[in-house]
């Protein structure tokens, strides 16, 4: 969702200095451990939440987690930690 021109020069700077993209481009960072744990940093809120499907608003777009017995272990302003059996991860 970052606009064309903006993305270009910031991305360029980040690439040139080998800086983390999530800091410069304000992107979400996802850390997946096996298929049981997922840490989403820099999210923008929950859209939908059931045991089988969790939709999270993120930068950019949306993260859809599908699986079984999904629970959100921690929910903070910046951080979201999902546990359960994760079968699919969709980024849109």
């Amino acid at each position, binding site marked *: 969702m970052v606009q064309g021109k903006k993305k270009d020069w910031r991305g360029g700077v980040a690439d040139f200095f080998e800086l983390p993209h999530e800091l410069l481009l304000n992107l979400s960072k996802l850390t997946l451990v096996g298929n049981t744990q997922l840490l989403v940093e820099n999210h923008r*809120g*929950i859209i939908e939440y*059931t*045991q089988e499907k969790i939709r999270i608003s993120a930068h950019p777009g949306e993260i859809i987690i599908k699986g079984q017995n999904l629970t*959100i272990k*921690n*929910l*903070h*302003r910046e951080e979201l930690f999902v546990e359960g059996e994760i079968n699919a991860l969709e980024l849109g």
Partner: protein
Amino acid sequence: MSIILKRLASYWTGYLVVTIEGEQKERLLNLALSKGISFWDLGFEQGQAVFKMKVRDYMKLRPLARRTNCRLKIKDKAGRPFLVNRGKKRKGFLLGALFFFFILYLSTSFVWFIRITGNEEVPQEKVMSLLRELEIRPGTWKKKIDLDYLSDRLVLEFEEITWASASLQGTLLEVNVVEKIKIPEASNAPADLVAKKDGVVTNVLVLAGEARVEEGDTVRRGDLLIEGVNYTLPEGKGLIEDEADDLQLVPIRARGVVEARVWYEGLGEVNLWEIFTVPTGQVASSYLLKYNEDVVGSWGVRQPPYRNYQLKKINHHWVWRNIRLPVELITLKYYELGVKKKKLSPEEALQKAGEEAWEMINKQLAPGLPVLRKHQEDRIFSEKVSRKILLETKENIAVLKPKEMLTDAETGGF
């Protein structure tokens, strides 16, 4: 902050288990997040979202719930503050717990066990009766016991005790006593010195008594060396050669040293053909089932199936607590042994024979004796070898033998 620390902190400050119901649950959560409210352990139950949150955030959540048309409900209150509250309500329980610890503490300030160690001569019962006299028994308050006085009294009361200590270890009173060691009195009964071994006398030193052997004499075991007698004159008579017959014999305890050369012999014989057995790895088992000493069943081989075997017997009982079942299973295991022969070289065999000979000598020889001479004799036959070792030592062969009390009639005949 790690997750565990967070959990501990939330336990300390207290937390709520909250359920929300409504169409816009997710919007409520997002709104709350933007206000800086955190949640954990979010779950989903029958259209409700269940989660945990801090107590002080709950007040901030309520207006948001109203705005999103969600229903909030506190399912549970957990953590230290609520536990304390509950404790305040249940005073009786708390009091009981306190009372329990108080009683536990109180019971440790009494002596419940008494252990007496180190007494062999003084009977346990006597020490216990002294303790009773001092009013020390299981159940006595520890502070009432004067340990120093107790140990002093023990030493004073019993002649056999030289030193005593009393100490408290928890609820155990340990009394440790040290008794006098009695040194057996040196006997003065009349005795002779006789030879304990065969040998040739080299040195005679008489301290008391009359020598009956001299240097160069060959003595056998049990021969008289120094007789425990003393000659005294009858009263009123001087010593004159002719009157030697009048001398009176008085039995005394002989003392002295008689050194002699003593020989020790050791003989070892070893067959050149060494026969030994090796397990072949073949095993046969048979089982016997016994009921009250009667054999009621057996399985496996009846008789030992091998010519040479080693038998291992395993008895198995079934015991439950104190009850022993009358059934017993006996397992007999036969391990087959193979017989092997090995021919030794004469040198090897002699070495072994020598070891045997030395073993034989060492059984007789007192340690620390000086060896004057050593003689070795080897013989090699067609089937076996032998090694003979002869040692010559010099030692004191005198040993005390109590005199048989002679009757007057016998002494009269001397």
